[in-house]
């Protein structure tokens, strides 16, 4: 192939980070080796090193971490890389031994997807449930259950189904919406990179095809604009910029912003991205922002939009994973790092600890290495944060020991509202809050109203919004005021195609915007920051 063709093929791909987890001997090393080998990304010199005699041992391609284990070295995660013309992949490979919880949490923290290995001859085990729970706790939204060693069970669809059904039943309790089951033989290569002649009953494709196509773009929060300031850039008296990575949402030049915790309000003058000045930037882009007014901003402050602010408090509830041999000392002072802040913090006695095998809650006085529990954290400084479930950047923190400076725990902030389900009376379901979207109705008129509405619905739902579509017929005859009031009752985005000819109009709150097609409407919606949280 010509050099330029390679370039265009490989330059603009997405990045998928995934985690592999399984118990010892489930075939994890073999699977990764198979993936790298069949995807054609293993170098010859590495390949030679992976032979035992004349036989290729796929597991040797990934260096089973055996030596380190024997020396008692703590390996939390080994990272491996491979590429196809569709995507670049980063595999976080976590060894499945005693340190599983700590290792898995580390690998999962930056992963979009988790591959859970299940040995078909053993079925769903405690470990499988534990891995699924930790993946879900760390906010992973896509699971692949790789039912391995199908060759040892005669490629049996019945065996596969039992595993699938059992796991699905358990997973209904987790916060993972997307679960894919793939029967495979890592050893023989069936359904890893290539399909399988042995299992024609499996309608879905092989693992790699799934990894190449799973839709992850809408996992990111592009709704709540948050930018923690990492660094003040001040080369001379004329320029004063605030550098940081956008944690979530979209930043636009000229918008009003609020500086937290001081609550000073000002306006964005310019946005400098890695590729020059821009009037728009989105998560996770690193930017340097200049502001209209001389406000006092320093590292750890957060820039947000005035109409969409995070929690700003001295305390929060969190799930923490304890990562150090010295267990949690309730009441003792730790250092807490959240976004760019490092502040003193105390942690309460755990409300409970989660038994990761049964997922039941147990009472406890402390948390030991690899234990997960629910605590309350207090800091003397006001912190701006969101629930982790909603924001994997502003809702995450680590705890650091004040004396040794060791990282002792990782935490995920729990939303206060969902935090006390046992104590509060039955809440009126606040759908828009739970869905994280504003009730918004969009009426579409025009010759192709139905087509445009359908396309817009498709766009919005691919970006993770719950969308309902009504046709004019379904509403009946209402005058404009009644119609508008009626539409607002929907706690979701409701798209109504009107078949009457006329200009295409989108109405929502007091705004009226003209547009042309679904893409244009969507762009307008995000431009107006209308899809904000209540």
């Amino acid at each position: 192939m010509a050099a330029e063709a390679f370039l265009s093929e490989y330059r603009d791909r997405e990045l998928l980070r995934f985690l592999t987890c399984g118990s010892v001997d489930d075939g994890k090393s073999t699977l990764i080796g198979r993936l790298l080998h069949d995807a054609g990304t293993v170098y010859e010199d590495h390949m030679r090193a992976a032979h035992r005699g004349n036989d290729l041992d796929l597991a040797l391609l990934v260096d089973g971490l055996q030596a380190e284990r024997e020396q008692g070295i703590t390996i939390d995660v080994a990272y491996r890389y491979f590429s196809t013309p569709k995507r670049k992949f980063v595999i976080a490979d976590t060894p499945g031994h005693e340190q599983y919880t700590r290792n898995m949490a580390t690998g999962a923290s930056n992963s979009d997807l988790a591959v859970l290995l299940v040995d078909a001859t053993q079925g769903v085990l405690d470990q499988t449930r534990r891995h699924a729970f930790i993946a879900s706790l760390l906010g992973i939204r896509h699971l692949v259950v790789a039912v391995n060693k199908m060759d040892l069970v005669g490629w049996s669809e019945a065996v596969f189904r039992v595993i699938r059904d059992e796991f699905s039943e358990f997973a209904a309790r987790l916060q993972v919406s997307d679960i894919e089951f793939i029967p495979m033989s890592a050893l023989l290569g069936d359904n890893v990179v290539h399909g399988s002649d042995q299992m024609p009953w499996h309608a879905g494709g092989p693992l790699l095809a799934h990894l190449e196509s799973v839709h992850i773009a809408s996992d990111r929060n592009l709704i709540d604009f948050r930018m923690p300031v990492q660094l003040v850039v001040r080369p001379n008296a004329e320029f004063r910029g605030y550098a940081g990575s956008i944690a979530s949402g979209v930043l636009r030049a000229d918008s009003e912003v609020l500086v937290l915790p001081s609550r000073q309000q000002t306006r964005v003058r310019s946005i400098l991205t890695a590729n020059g000045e821009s009037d728009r930037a989105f998560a996770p882009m690193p930017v340097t922002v200049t502001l209209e007014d001389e406000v006092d901003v320093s590292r750890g402050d957060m820039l947000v939009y005035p109409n969409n602010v995070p929690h700003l408090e001295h305390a929060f509830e969190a799930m923490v994973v304890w990562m150090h041999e010295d267990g949690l000392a309730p009441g003792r002072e730790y250092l807490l790092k959240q976004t760019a802040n490092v502040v003193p913090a105390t942690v309460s006695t755990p409300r409970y600890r989660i038994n990761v095998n049964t997922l039941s809650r147990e009472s406890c006085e402390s948390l030991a290495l690899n234990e997960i529990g629910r605590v309350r954290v207090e800091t003397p400084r006001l912190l701006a944060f969101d629930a982790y479930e909603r924001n994997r950047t502003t809702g995450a923190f680590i705890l650091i020991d004040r004396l040794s400076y060791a990282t002792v725990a990782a935490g995920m902030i729990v939303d206060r509202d969902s935090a006390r389900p046992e104590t509060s009376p039955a809440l009126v379901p606040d759908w828009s809050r739970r869905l994280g979207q504003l009730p918004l109705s969009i009426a579409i008129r025009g010759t192709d109203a139905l087509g445009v509405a359908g396309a817009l619905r498709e766009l919005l739902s691919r970006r993770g919004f719950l969308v309902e579509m009504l046709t004019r017929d379904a509403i009946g005859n209402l005058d404009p005021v009644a119609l508008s009031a009626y539409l607002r009752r929907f706690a979701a985005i409701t798209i109504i195609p009107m078949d009457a000819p006329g200009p295409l109009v989108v109405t929502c709150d007091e705004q009226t915007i003209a547009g042309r097609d679904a893409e244009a409407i969507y762009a307008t919606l995000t431009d107006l920051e209308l899809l904000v949280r209540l």
Partner: protein
Amino acid sequence: MTRSILSHLEALEAESIHILREVAAVMARPVMMYSIGKDSQVMLHLARKAFQPAPLPFPILHIDTTWKFAEMIAFRDRIVRETGAELLVWTNPEGLRENVNPFDHGTQRYTHVMKTEALKQALDHYGFNAAFGGARRDEERSRAKERIFSFRDRFHQWDPKNQRPELWNLYNGRVHKGESIRVFPLSNWTELDVWLYVEKENIPVVPLYFAKERPIVERDGALIMVDDDRLRLREGERPAQRRVRFRTLGCYPLTGAVESDADTVPKIIAEMLAARTSERSGRVIDFDEDGSMEEKKREGYF
């Protein structure tokens, strides 16, 4: 439709810039190791982006073993002129006095004295407590487990039992007096990513990466370039012009070339996508001992 997804190169760039800024913000005395190769060039390019329009908030440090390719030194000086970066060059004075070289002392001792010891001396001399390195995890299997913030004790040694878990982008750079961290902003980049980025961003690299006729001797299976008359030719060795390029750059007597026709970045990328050997197969340094990288890392080499 306005775009809201980063390409993989932009995502890697974003991660690296975040790391560079984080270190500059929290560490008292950072320095960037500058080895003149393509990875260093990419790292320097990212650092300039991270702090623009301000100059780099830290100096760059080159450990000069005195055995680098002449073209590397010329390139280094050109880059310093063009970027205005503050360059520090350090050579181990004892090594220099005793003329420690790869021929009389063996590669292992030579590397220890002229690279590992030299680096420690330089860090101590200037009091740096954080040093950026351009190493990538895909370079070599033992690096796969290396953290982005790699913790070193007061003897600059990597203590495998005392590394910190790294979650999200919440790096813990706290150190006590005398301790330090090595930081690898390119950890998640592969050789392919580096070249794709060099191409996309038009980053200058040492011409040795491009194929050209060069005077070569074949030694222990490696193609060694006769860069100056200090290379002691063995019995029967006669330099011959061969069309070669280098995939990694280091000390010329220890760096093997590959035969190639790739004389542009796109051709290098095309060649790499078709290539079947890893870039480290050209590094003599990895071959001479077992588990050598791991050992060197423990001693304080990158």
